């Protein structure tokens, strides 16, 4: 499975990935100047915080959000292994928000859904990786960290 890797030495905290995620993915207008004025405001799915570092959904192998979702809205794509929110059935109970170890799911009362990175599963390549001006964000094959597979 392909995952996103962020190099903390290259991340400058410029927030470009957030801006592109919000305007390219989250907004209706798909253009930055218009997205800024959209109501409700588009929600980026990547978080640039701290050191700085860009943090997206990890698409966990054992995803707590998948187990917590009470109506099958949180799904895993069998082809790519990516975890995504099937928004039409989301009832905004936010149990996924309550269990995400990385805090990357945003409860949105405006959109009445849980908002989470889906690794741009309907695009060719993740927009945050494409937009990053220092190439801090790359895509690579997931390593197997488990000592023993089951």
């Amino acid at each position, binding site marked *: 499975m392909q995952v996103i890797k*962020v190099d903390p030495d290259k991340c400058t905290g410029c927030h470009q990935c957030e801006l592109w995620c919000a305007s390219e993915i989250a907004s209706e207008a798909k253009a930055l100047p218009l997205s800024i004025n959209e109501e409700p405001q588009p929600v980026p799915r990547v978080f640039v915080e*701290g050191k700085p570092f860009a943090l997206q959904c990890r698409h966990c192998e054992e995803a707590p959000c998948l*187990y917590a979702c009470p109506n099958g809205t949180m799904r895993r794509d069998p082809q790519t292994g990516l975890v995504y929110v099937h928004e039409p059935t989301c*009832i905004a109970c936010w149990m996924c*928000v309550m269990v995400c170890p990385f805090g*990357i799911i945003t409860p949105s009362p405006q959109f009445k859904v849980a908002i989470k990175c889906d690794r741009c599963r309907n695009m060719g390549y993740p927009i945050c990786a494409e937009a990053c001006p220092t190439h801090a964000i790359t895509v690579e094959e997931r390593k197997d960290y488990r000592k023993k597979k089951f």
Partner: protein
Amino acid sequence: MKYVIVGGSAAAVSAVEAIRSVDKKAGIDLFSDEKTPLFSRVLLPYYVAQQLSKPLLNFRSADFFDEFDISAHIGVRIVSIDPGAKTVTAGTGETFPYDRLLLATGGNAIVPKIPGVDKAGVSTLKTMADAERILNLSGKRAAVIGAGSIGVESAISLLKRGMKVTLIEQLGQVLPTVFDEEAASIIQKVIEGMGVEVITGERATEFMGNGQVRAVATRGVTIDCDMVVLAVGVRPAVELGRQAGVEIGMMGGIKTDPHMQTTAPGIYAAGDVCETFDIARNTPFVNAIWPMAFEEGRIAGLNMAGHRAVFPGSVRMNSIGNFIGFPAMSMGVTHPGECSYAEADCVIEEIKDRTRNTYKKIILKNGCIIGAIFVGQTQKAGILTTLMRKQVEVTEFVPALMSKNLSFMDILPILRRHGDIFTEPEYKEIMDTGL
């Protein structure tokens, strides 16, 4: 290898998916006494509110059983188990052999022994039949007995259908097992603002009426009503387990070990019917909530299929999302007083932050989170849930955890300190970047 699953909800479905992830060929027979398969009980209030139609209550698609090659016996109740012969017997009289059996029978809604409780128009809300009964009641004035999660959601559902609703709770606050007094008072104001009449500190003593309920009497008041929803609690449905001879624990649920096995070899239990070790309370408990049922079902299924997996222990957690237009979450213990489970020499601290519309509280035991409440502002709550489940010391991080600008990056030092506890591959992936 033959697997028999008694139950058809979260724990059962999760177990079946886990078994199939390692064993694609063995026969799996699943028995559910609900005539409507694969619906989510958590969503029944939305059905009663007429916000969701029946197909939208499903948490798996209708072809789930075919897709996973399960022999599903829908509407069939298992009435007895013979652990010696390793068979189960259905209400139809048919017997089915098993090598591994999962008891995922969930819970039974408690029907309080109050005079008049058997009058027409009085119903619990647990099964699809209950939901349909309530949906078809042509009342205008409802009384809901019990202000737990189900009671509050039922009250709001009936309000959304245009009824006048009174919510009656015997303790001094709404949601007594979910929130403390302060959080409960904020929630109570919200639901009163929506139009629900809330009466606390009153116990229903009689349901009055001639065959059809007409009023609820408490010690202090009498409420006119033409329908009643009973939401006074749920008890693990252990009848089958008891008959099979498995040990029932102190909290009334089927006792399980960390592999979700009962005291009878080859018989497992998961979900609302079982008791697991509660990490926050440090004692066995029944945590009858969806995420736990799902995780327990998964661990049970993996172990049943021969793969050793360990359930790390449960915690209680509840989330009221957008249903009342005001988010609130709670996990673990809510009152330091609940820590009668705590050893005498441990240190309990409570840290609170209250603004007009938000409330945040963390309870620490010896520096580890054992409970948290978020009202009005719930982003990143999962970080605290995880720190609680891992039981790591967080004292110096409390200001960050209480801040509304909490970020995962704030707890990196905790990850670095406890590499042996944060073993999930995703943590290693992040730390490997050099963070």
